[in-house]
């Protein structure tokens, strides 16, 4: 990136010491734009701080603290209640895995809306991380003949079965490979995350994901203040800005504190299972070792850590 040859734009003032060329360029551009409208007020400074913020992985501990404090302040003001933004690191010796029992899922969509509440997805425009597909028992798993828009009086419908699909947290994730700016990556605990402040909204990752798991904020996300989950993570469920991509993080803000993801806890039939793949005594390992599990689109070599199985 820094090797690109571009004609340097005129910078009004010499940049302060320690600035990289990239930051100097951005600062110069921003100063020019700012000078045309207002000047010197604190909201400009806040916007400037956000604009020149480094990539999440390049932030020093002090810088990260400043960034989190700035976000907490802004969100608390916006939603009128205390909002926390943390950056909990991955636990040592943990690689998360998920399993879903297709013979139990009844397609009630409790997980879809539990997820929306927990992860602060936009209500209008609507964003769902989980898509529940309805398919014919006779045909088996046939994604071309799946229906996500079923609306029966009661479920399960006669002759149908249900397959919820969300981010598969691939070990060999195509989405993070195609990101031109490195705004999405796989964490040491196996969760694929996004730095919403670094995402440029090009949506290459959406095109690359074979599971249709990523969502783009076409409009300004809208979350009622009284429904906002105020316990948030930088790489997880903090409210996203318009123009960035988001997706399921297996409730990163919960699982890194030892809790089950929300979808596991709201499922009324206990079809969803979660745990540490590196712990031989975990329920996820029991399922992989004792049940006939399969992964979605195995032939693509994405190596999902999301396992489907038939428990009955």
């Amino acid at each position, binding site marked *: 990136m820094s090797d690109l040859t571009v004609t340097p734009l005129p910078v009004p003032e010499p940049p302060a010491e320690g600035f990289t060329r990239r930051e100097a360029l951005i600062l110069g551009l921003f100063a020019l734009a700012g000078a045309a409208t207002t000047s010197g007020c604190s909201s400009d400074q806040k916007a400037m701080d956000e604009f020149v913020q480094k990539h999440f992985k390049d932030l020093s501990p002090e810088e990260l603290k400043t960034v989190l404090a700035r976000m907490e302040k802004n969100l608390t003001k916006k939603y009128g209640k205390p909002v926390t933004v943390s950056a909990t690191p991955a636990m040592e010796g943990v690689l998360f895995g998920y399993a879903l029992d297709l013979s139990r899922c009844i397609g*009630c969509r409790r997980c879809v809306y539990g997820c929306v509440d927990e992860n602060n997805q936009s209500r209008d425009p*609507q964003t769902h991380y989980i898509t529940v597909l309805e398919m014919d028992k006779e045909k088996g798993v046939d994604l071309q003949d799946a229906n996500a828009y079923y609306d029966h009086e009661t479920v399960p419908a006669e002759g149908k079965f249900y397959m919820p699909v969300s981010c598969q947290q691939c070990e060999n994730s195509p989405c993070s490979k195609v990101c031109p700016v490195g705004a999405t990556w796989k964490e040491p605990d196996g969760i694929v995350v996004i730095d919403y402040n670094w995402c440029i909204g090009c949506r290459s990752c959406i095109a690359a994901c074979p599971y249709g798991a990523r969502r783009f904020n076409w409009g300004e996300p809208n979350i009622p203040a009284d429904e906002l*989950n105020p*316990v948030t993570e930088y790489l997880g469920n903090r409210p996203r800005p318009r123009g960035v991509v988001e997706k399921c993080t297996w409730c990163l803000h919960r699982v890194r504190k030892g809790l*089950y993801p929300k979808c596991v806890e709201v*499922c009324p039939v*206990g079809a969803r299972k979660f*745990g540490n793949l590196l712990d031989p005594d975990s*329920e996820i390992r029991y399922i992989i070792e004792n*049940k006939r599990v399969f992964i979605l689109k195995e032939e693509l070599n994405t190596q999902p850590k999301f396992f489907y199985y038939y428990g009955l």
Partner: protein
Amino acid sequence: MTGAKPAVGTVAASAKPAAALFPVAPPPFSDGVFPCSECHKPGDKVDRVPHKVEFHEDIVLHHDEKNRWCLDCHDAAHRDSLHLADGRLIPFTESYRLCGQCHGPTLRNWKAGEHGKRTGSWSGAKQYLLCPSCHSPHSPHFKPLKPKSPPLRQEAIK
């Protein structure tokens, strides 16, 4: 957000050491039926031949009803307990032992965390649900549910 919802119940402090292995939510009794000894007194005459019970008419047995009836699980002499097939008494908080007599593989999977829902911590303290928390013991098959609303179709998004 804290994971443990009060509705799910807390880790049961059972007197039996065996139960401590499986921290289950309290049994889901219907209002006003427990303790059974409120009505059923020890000296009552008991007809052990399967017959229709007059008082508990709301209970429709749909659980191998051709071969089984109330006193196969409920104990006539100790009304506030259940009994296993060999006659050993067990409290309602350990009903999974009773269910597991017929549903062995299910009990095994439940103990391992594969069958049924667990809440709490994937790495630490978790809550189990007793079999009757999800399956009515008298009619264990799941009842259909109304699904939540479907997602908006793309063409409906402005």
